[in-house]
């Protein structure tokens, strides 16, 4: 049995940056899971007497224009953000993985076709594509997820394709073929493990981007339906009153900053650990 210190988690815990990342991310995940328990108020409850209340012991992060508790709404927003991010990233990563491997292994014409497809999608600015798709599709979280998948799977595809291409003719793959290894064994035992490192790093770095896209779309009013406590919606509510009650938009930005920092740190720590060639010592 491998000693715990040598497992991926063990090695991550030895890296201060990874520990910070894990603390932030698990804090956010726990807050999202137990949002109903932690929240001091009902996130939907409007208290007209306490509109625009500044942060206090009663309302930790103040209230918005309808007298709703911002802290409770942000906790609910965490659920939405994590749900969108997890779903969208897994779907686009999976599509990217399959298409990237097909491009890497397939004949030249397939590779060129897929590359053209990837490049075309990447050429569109995310927000333009989001506005166009939002006009076509009903308003809701699934539209947000579709927008994210459409704009980001090509990035995974490109990374996987490049890795596959460079590995396909590597000497150790030839050695496996010379030994009689089947195509499936080569793909799953020897190519995939070497592709997954950069792939997971990309996924970790991509999660906060996805959350920001959701916030951005909700901010523009093309994301979640009105009344949904998304972080972007909180930002938008705060933006309208930025001159008089700046704490609404400030507290709306806080979780976005935390989530971006957390996953970026995690991505960098993973990159250091997943590539054995970069790993110093054991």
């Amino acid at each position, binding site marked *: 049995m491998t000693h715990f210190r040598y497992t991926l988690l063990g090695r991550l815990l030895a890296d201060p940056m990874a520990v910070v990342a894990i603390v932030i991310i698990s804090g956010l995940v726990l807050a999202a899971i137990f949002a109903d328990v932690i929240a001091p108020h009902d996130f939907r409850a409007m208290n007209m007497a306490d509109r625009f209340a500044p942060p206090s012991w009663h309302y930790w992060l103040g209230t918005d224009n309808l007298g709703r508790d911002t802290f409770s709404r942000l906790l609910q927003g965490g659920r939405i953000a994590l749900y969108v991010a997890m779903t969208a990233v897994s779907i686009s990563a999976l599509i990217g993985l399959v298409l990237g491997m097909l491009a890497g292994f397939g004949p030249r014409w397939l590779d060129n076709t897929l590359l053209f497809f990837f490049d075309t999608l990447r050429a569109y600015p995310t927000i333009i594509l989001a506005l166009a798709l939002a006009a076509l599709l009903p308003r809701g979280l699934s539209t947000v997820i579709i927008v994210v998948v459409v704009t980001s799977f090509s990035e995974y595809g490109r990374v996987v394709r490049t890795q596959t291409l460079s590995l396909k003719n590597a*000497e150790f793959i*030839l050695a496996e073929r010379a030994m009689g290894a089947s195509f499936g064994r080569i793909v799953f035992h020897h190519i995939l493990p070497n592709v997954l490192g950069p792939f997971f790093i990309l996924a970790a770095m991509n999660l906060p981007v996805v959350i920001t896209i959701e916030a951005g779309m909700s901010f523009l009013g093309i994301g979640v339906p009105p009344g949904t406590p998304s972080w972007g919606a909180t930002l938008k509510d705060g933006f309208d009153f930025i001159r008089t009650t700046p704490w609404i938009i400030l507290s709306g930005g806080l979780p976005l900053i935390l989530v971006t920092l957390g996953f970026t740190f995690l991505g960098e720590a993973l990159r250091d650990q997943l590539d054995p060639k970069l790993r110093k010592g054991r």
Partner: protein
Amino acid sequence: MNTPILSLRDVTVEFPGVSGLRALFTPSGQRRVQAVAGVSLDVAAGETLAIVGESGSGKTTLARAINGLVPLAAGEVWFDGTPLHDRSDWREVRRRVAMMFQDPVGSLSPRKTVRDLLLEPFAIHGMPSNGREETALRLLQDAGLGADFLNRYPHELSGGQARRVGVARALALGPTLVLADEPTAGLDVSIQGEILNLLNGIKVSHGLTTVIITHNLNILRHIADRVAVMYLGRIVELGPVEDILTSPVHPYTQALMAANPEPDPTARRKRLALRGETPALNDRPSGCEFHSRCPMARPDCAVRAPELAPSRTGGIVSCHYPLPAISEVS
């Protein structure tokens, strides 16, 4: 010679020379280049044949063609009495023909431990590796490494250690034939010696037939029985190792040997310098393909192509004007 275990008949390997739109404007004869151009040779059971030649002479491609990693454009490969070129049971062949690649570290899958790497051949061929731990350890010890290497990753090994793992892996399934591509490449001279001793020891104890591809002429005497010299994808001379080293018949062989540094400062050897560069594979010279660089070339060499014919040393040579033995010159 006993019955050959490996026979090559006119083995030819082609690669696309030009691609894309330019291929449309290129005469069909020049669209493909021949990296290996009609090689025939026999390797007897238990023998060690070394294939030498400059970079780009087709040595590595020939080795890869033998075990089917690159397709043959023409010709046949026979292994142990059966043709390999149209076999469906490649897996069975690959169990019996082991290959060692040039880059000792780069030919080991980077995310597998040495234990995984050593046991993988058994998994590939669905063979029981009875007592997995013991099997891996025995293979490793046969190659001269200890148990503490089992948990290491390839990047944690030195070149020599990785080469030993490669040797252990190649021997895992008890092969009949071993194809070794530059087994000493990238190793210190002292390590080269250890690896050669290891290979020699294993050859004897396992009764292996080996084909060694190398451009390191210093190792020939220690390991090879016969030597084949390749130039532009063809064999130009083939003979017993001693004759190739001391009394080459083909001018190219002599130039190759002369270019090799001689460790003995008192030795006097005939210097034979080559002119120019190796011609491109898609622009082969007429007649004898070596005439453009041959110091002995005569006018008809550019016209008539020589055939491989028996040489004075008991080997074969493809030259119109083979060199006499050195004793006759000096």
